[in-house]
């Protein structure tokens, strides 16, 4: 039996590295961050504005509240361990954020270096949020619906195109020239046609977003299917697998990592088409909101909407990666986010 002990030793090996419980450091980084935010609030309130700006006091109060929250988290780090660790890791970034906010504040409202009303101070953006949050929320909803609808449709079509192109040479004979010819045409170039061909601006917008998604997803899926290790098929075939099994249980799962890379690449293009389409014809959503704000010289609203866009689309991308990590258990995905 002694020669079997080797296997026993291996069998009891750990499956994944166990995270060592890190001790909660009492390092004062979070206090620095709180201090930076408190100071930025002081700058906002006590340094006189060059002209009248609404919500200056409100902004200062918000900055102090945030500073206070950071302090609270620092003091109660025992109870709020998870939150503390996150904030503590980002403490210097929070300091930088306070500094940037103050530079913006000083340059626009305090010294008047940036011409008004084109570059309103942060309180101008705050004012836009407070006055116009209903319309902004509507725009977010409209953009998200159009985005998910278009990306979903385009991803499905792209996946099916790529899969059939890579799997069946007979399909590929027809799809490859089509992909080669129309794939590289930017979806934005079709906006003028699409907006009068489609019955509603929503369906036209969805089509454009889908088109922008379709090409990268199709190409990546296609190359994914073609690059599946042929030994994967050999293994399945010697175990009695038929064509259907090879497609559904070997080719598709082996291709999924490529599909997600394609989706990631497609998302950027899809979002840019989405915004342009909203500006030009859809008359709803964040792109339309930007266009509207610019038309009315509502610059606070303009920057406010841009910030919302950054957060929203970053969130959508994060969601995509979250889904990928759920779907691709056991497979290392290429792109990190």
């Amino acid at each position, binding site marked *: 039996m002694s*020669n079997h002990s080797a296997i026993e030793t291996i*069998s*009891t090996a750990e499956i994944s590295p166990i995270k060592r419980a890190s001790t909660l450091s009492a390092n004062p980084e979070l206090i620095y961050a709180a201090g930076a935010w408190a100071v930025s609030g002081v700058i906002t309130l006590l340094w006189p504005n060059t002209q009248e700006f609404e919500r200056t006091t409100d902004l200062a109060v918000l900055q102090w509240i945030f500073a206070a929250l950071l302090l609270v988290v620092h003091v109660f780090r025992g109870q709020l361990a998870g939150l503390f660790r996150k904030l503590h890791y980002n403490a210097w970034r929070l300091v930088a954020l306070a500094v940037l906010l103050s530079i913006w504040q000083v340059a626009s409202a305090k010294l008047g270096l940036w011409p008004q009303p084109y570059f309103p101070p942060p309180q101008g953006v705050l004012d836009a949020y407070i006055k116009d949050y209903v319309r902004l929320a509507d725009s977010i909803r409209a953009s998200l619906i159009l985005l998910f609808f278009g990306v979903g449709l385009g991803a499905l079509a792209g996946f099916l195109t790529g899969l059939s192109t890579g799997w069946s040479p007979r399909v590929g004979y027809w799809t490859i020239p089509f992909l080669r010819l129309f794939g590289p045409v930017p979806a934005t170039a079709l906006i003028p046609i699409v907006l009068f061909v489609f019955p509603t601006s929503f369906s036209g917008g969805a089509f454009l977003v889908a088109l922008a998604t379709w090409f990268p997803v199709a190409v990546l899926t296609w190359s994914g299917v073609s690059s599946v290790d042929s*030994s994967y098929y050999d*293994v399945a075939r010697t*175990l009695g697998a038929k064509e259907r099994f090879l497609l559904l249980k070997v080719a598709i799962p082996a291709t999924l990592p490529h599909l997600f890379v394609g989706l990631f690449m497609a998302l950027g293009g899809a979002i840019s088409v989405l915004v342009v389409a909203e500006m030009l014809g859809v008359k709803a959503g964040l792109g339309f909101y930007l266009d509207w704000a610019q038309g009315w010289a509502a610059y606070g609203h303009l920057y406010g909407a841009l910030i919302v866009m950054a957060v929203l689309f970053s969130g959508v991308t994060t969601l995509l990666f979250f889904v990928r990590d759920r779907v691709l*258990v056991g497979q290392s995905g290429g792109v990190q986010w």
Partner: protein
Amino acid sequence: MVASALAQTSPETLARPSAGASLDIDNVSHAFNLDGSTLHVLDHVSFDVKPGEFVALLGPSGCGKSTLLRLIAGLEPPNAGALKVNGQTITGPDPSRVVVFQDPTLYPWRTVWRNVALGPEAQGKLKESRGRVDEAIDLVGLGQFSKAYPHQLSGGMAQRVALARALVNDPSILILDEPLGKLDSLTRLTMQSELVSLWQEKGFTAILVTHDVEEALFLSTRVIIFSNRPARIKADFEVDLPYPRHRGDPRLAELRHRSLAELGLDSTW
């Protein structure tokens, strides 16, 4: 581990009448097309394997051993000659002839359990085979890893999963392409003993490709030695020693000298 696993399992679950199949290889030649020129890999190879034999194939790297195994598995048809199992010509892959490839080739998106269950699932009999999947995983000593993913396994463990994935189909011919090549020497010795007990227990016909002369002699009832590419049979002899064998056996040493001489390595020994 195998011995203990066998002891724990009730006899009726393991006593499956899966007597090995016979294999006739008749004048098989094979060539590949390499950049327009023809690469002859197998040159009129003929040998017959009796049911339940354990045949080891030895030969220089690149001579065509894996190619021969692919032909036996039915993954490719030979250019010339015929391969027959129990008298029937091989026309394609069949789960009664399972290959353990040189690489474990586990599916990274499947857990150990679902990798082992691949054969029954592909044949549409997963429901009735669940118990056998568990049994096969236990047999290779990976019971507590059934939910692990391949990237969480060591190389040796992955190779054992590949072995379990083959065994679960209860093959009548088990085709092994250097299945222990990547293991450390300790695990390797353990796995060799496990292979022998499995083979004795189940009675399948085994075809093993290996680079290791001692391994061939320790495991097999018969050794076939191939020449350089294109592979021709250079020697074919019985290893007429009872199991369990002892690595220090003087008769093994004698056979090893003979095998190394056939492989052209006698001057170094």
